[in-house]
Structures are given as structure tokens and as C-alpha cells.
């Protein structure tokens, strides 16, 4: 009798998945086959235009960087016979680009570490002890996300001058930490509120102190949100220009974005060298993006959606 089952179990299961799967793209409504084909071609063409547009500045920069100034051929064509590497040496010698990459690496690394440590630490009481004071502190911190860097330029630069923090790593790092902390605290607090309280309570019953709970129980659970914070912070600090251009003024202290900006302004008509410098600044980010692309987009979305 059991053989009358006509449908294999797998089929029902599949149908079940289908029904609840919200990841499946919505099926297209019935249009003529020709109409659908035209639609697909139009969409494909639009996407192609978008992709070409997004790659265009990179392509133009590559062709410009590989030609001497005397080469008057169009930016659209790559140099035919020989690639000209002199622009890169100019960028390194006069633009101090390699030193700037080193400075940026240091500032980005330390700032990101500090943002994660201070951010996670600060978020814990704000997430778990929702007194009136703490809720106000939280709103105040989140409100700081809106502060545009240039709106505090005058008082900040004045203060940094008085503290003799201009042209120092520690000064720039602390300013970078301050600009990135509000978002990090917000992300950590949102994530912590979603963690089950029972685990921490169990640890408390076992006699763990709040410090032990935080370090031994909570911190190990923060890996996903920490990935997001690390990505958002390191990209923002690596690319920061508006404040660091004023805080890092001496050529040997400049981070990469100010170095490109000042080199570009001073190199005048030497577009080849400016192009070479730009490429060198993009390569580290590009390399990391190629390897961790999936995490980048995921992390950015998580950061934006909270």
C-alpha cells in the first residue's frame, strides 16, 4: 500500500522550500517572448554602460600613468611599444607616496584597533544597562555621527596646535578614532542587544564578575559585528582627507589621501605623475577588496542597515 505514494519526499520538500524561500528573484510577469528578450537586452546594455562608467576613471588613470608627458596620444589608448615607469619614480621621489602609504597603514591599523576596543567596551553598558542617563548618552553619541568634519575644523585645528599634536601620529590617530567611534559604538550596541541575555546571566550565576563576563563571554560573540566595524573604520580612515590634510602637514608625516591631494596640487601639469600616485594609493585597497570582496559588501550593508 505504501507504494502508492507518487511524489518522492524530495519533491515536496523542494516545493516547501520554494514556497518560503524569499531569496528567489520574483518571477517575471508574462510578456511575449520577444518583449522579454528586448527587455533583457536593454537591461544588459544599461548594466554594461554602468560598468564601463565605473571602470573608466581607473582605465584613464592607467593609460595616463604609463605615458611620458611628451606622448600626445589620446588617454583612450594604452602606450603602444613601451610602458613608461618614470611617472611612478616621480610620484615616489617628489610625492613621498611610499612613505605616505606607510603612514596610512600605521594610522589605519592603530585607529581601527582602538575603535574596536573602545567601541565594544563602551557599547556594553549602553546596551545592557538602559538607565535614563545611558539612553541619553547613547543618543548623544549617535548624534555625533552627523557632525561634518569641516564644521569643527577651526576649533579642532587650534586645539591640536596648542597640544602640539599637529604632524604627530598620536594626534591624528585620536582624531580618527573620535570620528569613527560613534558609528562603532552604535553598531556594537545594536548587536549586543540582539545577543541572548541568558548566557551572561548564566555566567553571573556561576560567579563571574561583570569584567569577566564582558571579556570571556561577550567579546568572543562579537566577531560578525567586529568584521563590519573593522571594514567601515579602516576604509574610512585610509581614505580620510578633510581633517588629516590639515593635521598632517609635513611631507614625511602625510597619510595617503593628503599626500595625493598636495602632490596633485603641486605637480601642476604633470598629470602622468599624479595618475601614477593615484594608482599606487588605490592598489592596497584594491588588493584587500579582491580577497575579501564578499565581506566588504556584506559588512557595508550591515553597517548601513542598522
Amino acid at each position, binding site marked *: 500500500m505504501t507504494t502508492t505514494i507518487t511524489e518522492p519526499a524530495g519533491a515536496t520538500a523542494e516545493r516547501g522550500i520554494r514556497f518560503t524561500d524569499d531569496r528567489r528573484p520574483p518571477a517575471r510577469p508574462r510578456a511575449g517572448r520577444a518583449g522579454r528578450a528586448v527587455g533583457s537586452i536593454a537591461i544588459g546594455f544599461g548594466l554594461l554602460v554602468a560598468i564601463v562608467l565605473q571602470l573608466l576613471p581607473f582605465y584613464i588613470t592607467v593609460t595616463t600613468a604609463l605615458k611620458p608627458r611628451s606622448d600626445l596620444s589620446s588617454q583612450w589608448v594604452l602606450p603602444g611599444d613601451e610602458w613608461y615607469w618614470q611617472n611612478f619614480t616621480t610620484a615616489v621621489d617628489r610625492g613621498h607616496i611610499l612613505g605616505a602609504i606607510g603612514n596610512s597603514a600605521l594610522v589605519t591599523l592603530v585607529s581601527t584597533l582602538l575603535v574596536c576596543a573602545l567601541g565594544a567596551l*563602551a557599547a556594553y553598558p549602553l546596551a545592557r544597562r538602559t538607565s535614563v542617563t545611558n539612553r541619553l*548618552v547613547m543618543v548623544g553619541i549617535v548624534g555625533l555621527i552627523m557632525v561634518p568634519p569641516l564644521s569643527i*575644523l*577651526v576649533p579642532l585645528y587650534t586645539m591640536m596646535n596648542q597640544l602640539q599634536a599637529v604632524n604627530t601620529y598620536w594626534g591624528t590617530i585620536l582624531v580618527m578614532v573620535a570620528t569613527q567611534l560613534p558609528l562603532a559604538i552604535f553598531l556594537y550596541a545594536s548587536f549586543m542587544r540582539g545577543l541572548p*541575555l541568558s548566557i551572561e546571566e548564566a555566567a553571573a550565576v556561576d560567579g563571574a564578575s561583570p569584567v569577566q563576563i564582558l571579556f570571556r563571554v561577550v567579546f568572543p560573540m562579537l566577531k560578525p559585528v567586529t568584521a563590519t566595524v573593522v571594514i*567601515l573604520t579602516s576604509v574610512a580612515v585610509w581614505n580620510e582627507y578633510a581633517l588629516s590634510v590639515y593635521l598632517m602637514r609635513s611631507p614625511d608625516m602625510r597619510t595617503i589621501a593628503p599626500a595625493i*591631494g598636495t602632490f*596633485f596640487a603641486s605637480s601642476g601639469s604633470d598629470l602622468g605623475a599624479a595618475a601614477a600616485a593615484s594608482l599606487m594609493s588605490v592598489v592596497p585597497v584594491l588588493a584587500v577588496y579582491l580577497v575579501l570582496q564578499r565581506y566588504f*559588501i556584506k559588512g557595508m550593508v550591515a553597517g*548601513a542597515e542598522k
Partner: protein
Amino acid sequence: MTATSSLTLPQRRRGSRSSASPRFARRSLNLFYVPALAVLALFTIWPLLNGIVLSFTNWNGYSPGRSFIGLENYGRLFADPIFHTALFNTFIYGFGSTLIQQVVGLALALALDRAMRGRNVARAIIYLPVLVSPVVMGTMYYLFFSYNSGGLNDLVVALGGERTAWLSDSNTAIALIVLVNSLQFVGISMVIYLAGLQSIPVMYYEAARLDGAGALQQFMNVTVPLLQPAFATSIVLNLIGGLKLFDVIQVLTGGGPGYSTNSVSTLISTAYFDNQTAGYASAMGVALFILIAVFTLFANTMLNRKRLELQ
């Protein structure tokens, strides 16, 4: 940079779970946020407050002497045509970029939500410029726009047009700045809308189709309303980014020709370092902060209210 779409007080949960365990109620737990608050207080809050004080002075930025001149700097803001231009441009940069990014970002998200070959590569490429410093992106586009050797002029000439000094005309320059900023960050809107699209259950579309809805009707009555949270996030983010625009302008035009392409941000830098009017620059800083706060909170409230109505 992100996060402002839920600028609301964290709700105290029913039965106040925070006091479930006496250990979590301990006030000493608050010590954990003291280091972060100290950094924020010194490097953000203190400058913010100090900026308000400075905005009431005639300080030149370097000499020790300064005197309080009341609201004079703010009066000057209302009378200064250069500031008016910068303010107007700031709105164009902010709203122009936001508009383009929503339209293009949503279109790209809809196109790349379909199952197709190479869609991950396409997403990654469109998103790529987000990771580049705006200064570098500006430099790259500067090469493209340059008069003699620029690729854009080569293209125009090839099509039978004349070489144009794209960045010497303020209207063209402003349009190009908006375009460069929009293209660079359109990837953010795209991924937010992609995430939004993926959170819409397919059964809503199936139900709509059963009721005889066409493609456009499905889009208007299912997709658009259910994307409301994504709209809120994306619009608020783009608005903040556009209204504080600085780096791209510095590289592409430096605020020129004359003062015609300045945003409030670039004008602050000029007023402080070039014109030595630090007091006036502080007043502009206060104005910029208020402007961004007002627009962000307004957009946030409006968009979130709409979301509530839908539920």
C-alpha cells in the same frame, strides 16, 4: 557615516530586562564607556562647543587677541553673497547627488537582483569606487576632464565637437562634481536596495500576480512600499554625504572659478586658512552642522513615519 536611520531612543524593554540580573544594574558598569566618552569629549564635543564660542569673536586664527563681537559673524552670513553661493551649491551637491543615487542605485539593484551570469562581478565593479578616497577619485576624473589631454575632450572632438574647458565654467563644473560624487557612491545605494529587495517575500509577488497585477503594478504596489526602510537608509546616508561634500570639490575646482563652486565645507577651509577669518569660519561651521542635523533629522522622521504607516 551610516547608522542615522534609527536615531531613536533605545526602547526600554518590557519588564526592563536590564535589571533582570542585579549585576547588570551596577552603576560601575558605566565605567566602561568612560574612555570612549573621553576621546569623543576632547576631539569632537569640545571643538563643537568651542566653535560656537569662536563664532561670536573676530579671531583671525593665529594672533592671541580676539574680542567678542556678538552676532556680527552671523549677520555677515546673511549678507555675504559668497556664502549664499556656497550654501546654494551645498544644496545642489546634497540633493542632486541624493536624487541621482536613488534613481540609478535602485535601477541597478533591480537589474542585478535577477538571476544572471556575472552578476556578482557586476556588483563588485559598480561598488568598487566606494572604496577609493574621494581625493583620488577626483584626481582620476580631473585627468579625464582636462582640456588638452583629457579623454572627454578627445571623445567630443571625435564626435565633431569642440574642446571645452569643462571645469572653467561654474555650471558645468557643479554638474560634473555632482556626477562624480553620485557615480562614486552609487554602489552604497545599490547594495542597500539589493538587501531591501531580497527581504521582500516572493509570496507577495505571487499574490499580486494572482490578482492580475502587471509588472508595473507589482513594482508600484509591492516593491516600492516594502522598500521603504531601504529608501530611508539610503536617502539619509546620501544626504549627509552630499551636504558635507569637500574632497572632490577641492581636487576638481578648488572652489573656483572665483568662489562659484564652493560648498560650505570648502568655504570654511578658505575662510580659515586663506582669508584668516577664523571667527567667521566658525560661524559657517556652526551653520553647516545645524543644516546637516536639521535635514538629516527631518528626512529621518519623514521617512520613518511613512514606514510606520505602512505596517
